[in-house]
């Protein structure tokens, strides 16, 4: 049995070694398109007018470059990492909690920004963001970003819009006189521990938390305690955006952390819903188009990256997804449907109040030794299970 186990180990090791790509060199010029482009993306990120005719940012690209775009949707950052590890894709729209993992795993290659004419139009705040700019190299082109807002029911809150995340963390009566117990939700992912840590940064400054993604044991325990208190208030954690929408319609939910995506869809449906970025600030996500180290279609990939910045994509996608474009001009210059007011509503002016998702690692910048992500996962499972 032992020798069998050993050979299994050897096999799996051999398999994992053999798929490691040779370190890729940065491209220096763009040639002819290869006729095809394979992208891993969040659902709704790459639309060709099939869901709604007016949201189309693929057809014209295909006509112009001859690169046929194939999209593979992934629902979580971890699925994205897994798909990129498997290979066979050229590009991925990775969030900050996936991008560094792929850079460290050498699954993505550095981008030569001089080959992307519209690079200069990118938001200065994103050009060298730490989730894709590592050791002086750009591992991708910023795509979209957005805050995790506090969504609330305006019938419950009336004129007193919530100003603090305390409505989802502390037991209290909401403005309609009923307790918040059973009427609030929280995100069903370990990254929600960061939301608790962010709340503690304001409310327990003596803990000395500098980044909600970099927690030592004591800070981490305090965040878990807060989440255990929250467990008593939460009847169901939300996992799927559409289930949360349903819960706000049919389960009498009053408040929850959420994405502008759900807020926009609910409002479009006429539901009494609004959102706010509370005084503590908010966590958020920022996605980057990254290129696989072994991309089979590098020329089409570079053409697509340029296309994301210069076409109607940024503008229309920000309307469609309730997110903010990486190119500020897309809010105002009429290249698509987005307007300055729309961007403001999606949180464009709140960039500095957002702590963007990162993967928590054990060797962290602010304090040397932090609790790593895999423990966030198992402990959050415990908290939701009532431990």
């Amino acid at each position, binding site marked *: 049995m*032992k020798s*069998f*186990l050993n050979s*299994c*180990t050897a*096999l*799996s*090791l051999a398999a994992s070694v053999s798929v490691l790509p040779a370190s890729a060199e940065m491209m220096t010029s763009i040639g002819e398109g290869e006729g095809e482009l394979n992208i891993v993306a969040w659902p709704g990120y790459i639309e060709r007018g099939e869901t709604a005719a007016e949201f189309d940012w693929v057809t014209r690209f295909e006509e112009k470059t001859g690169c046929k775009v194939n999209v593979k949707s992934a629902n*979580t950052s*971890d*699925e994205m990492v*897994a798909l990129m590890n498997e290979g066979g894709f050229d590009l991925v729209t990775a969030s900050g909690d996936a991008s560094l993992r792929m850079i460290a795993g050498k699954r993505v290659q550095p981008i030569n920004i001089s080959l992307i004419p519209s690079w200069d139009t990118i938001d200065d705040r994103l050009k060298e963001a730490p989730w894709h700019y590592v050791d002086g190299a750009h591992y991708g082109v910023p795509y979209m970003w957005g805050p995790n807002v506090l969504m609330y029911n305006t019938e419950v809150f009336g004129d007193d819009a919530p100003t603090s995340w305390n409505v989802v963390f502390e037991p209290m009566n909401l403005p309609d006189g009923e307790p918040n117990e*059973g*009427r609030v939700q929280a995100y*069903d*992912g*370990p990254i929600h521990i960061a939301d608790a840590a962010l709340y503690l940064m304001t409310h327990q400054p003596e803990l000395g938390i500098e980044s909600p993604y970099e927690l030592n044991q004591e800070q981490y325990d305090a965040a878990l305690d807060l989440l255990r208190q929250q467990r008593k208030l*939460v*009847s*169901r*954690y939300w*996992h*799927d955006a559409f*289930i949360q929408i*349903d*819960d706000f*319609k*049919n*389960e*009498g939910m009053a408040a929850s952390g959420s994405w502008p995506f759900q807020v926009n869809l609910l409002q479009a449906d006429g539901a009494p819903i609004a959102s706010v970025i509370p005084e503590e600030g908010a966590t958020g996500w920022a996605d980057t188009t990254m290129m696989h180290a072994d991309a089979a279609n590098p020329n089409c990939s570079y053409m697509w990256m340029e296309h994301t910045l210069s076409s109607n994509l940024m503008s229309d996608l920000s309307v469609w997804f309730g997110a903010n474009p990486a190119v500020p001009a897309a809010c105002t210059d009429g290249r698509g449907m987005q307007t300055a007011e729309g961007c403001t509503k999606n949180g464009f002016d709140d960039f500095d109040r957002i702590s963007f998702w990162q993967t928590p*690692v*054990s060797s962290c910048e602010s304090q040397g030794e932090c609790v*790593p*992500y*895999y423990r966030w*996962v*198992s*402990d959050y*499972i*415990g908290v*939701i*299970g*009532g*431990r």
Partner: protein
Amino acid sequence: MAETAARPPAPRGLSDRLSDLLWSRQGLLVLLLILPPALWLGIIYLGALFALLAQSFFAIDPFSGLIKYEFTLRTYGELFRAANLDIILRTVLMAGSVTLAAALIGFPVAYYAARYARGKWKALFYLGVMLPLWSSYLVKVYSWKLILAKEGILSWLFETLHLTWLLDAYLSLPVVGGNSLSVSWTGTFLVFLYVWLPFMILPTQAALERVPPSMLEASGDLGARPGQTFRHVLLPLALPGIVAGSIFTFSLTLGDYIIPQIVGTSARMIGQAVYQFQGTAGNIPLAAAFAVVPILIMGVYLYIAKRMGAFDAL
């Protein structure tokens, strides 16, 4: 000339010789026929399973979070942490109660279908039992979410019947209650029961159809009351079918990770834990160790089922 006549027919083409060989050695033929499926089962199925199980003997390095490929039982030790034991216990209890309820509801339905339904009613019965299996599993689960919601059909029904107090009283119970049916364990239980019930009814019905009516009549002629006939004749003869059905309901509940994610309290069951540990956390050893748990439980379950004669009819 005689010499020529005695010579065996000259060897013909390759395919003829092959055919001769296979005819003279029947064992070889069987081996050749069985080899591809055996390889499929052995390499693709069992091989993958063992590769997964082998992972459970590794552990994740607590500092770097990377998997260390050294033999250790530490990962199995982690299964005994309180939060993980909760998950196992919760799942087994749920699977057990779903199986029990499915047997209780499934038996009368199967009995009616086996004994009384005839002609087009029988066809209608099959259609009725199978129909839910034809629609998408996700559609069914989502529609149950709407039925059970706080502002859903069931609440409306209770309200119309002026029985809201009853629902509220039930929901205020610990463990089975909650803020609404769709966020309570009761809701998870009901959806599981609905989704897996056909898997209980069909084998039970098959077993009941094999019970000769003459046995039941003989039991009555010998003076047994209906209850006694049921306990001592019908139930023992139908038990293999019920046990076979319970294997489906029990193991399917044990491994499911979609229903508890959509309906229920968000507390994890084994399937969700495996999904999350291997996907989100990259903690493949712990996910593999969790995957071993249902295998062990099902092993014990199948052993008991075998003792009860569930496989005698195979």
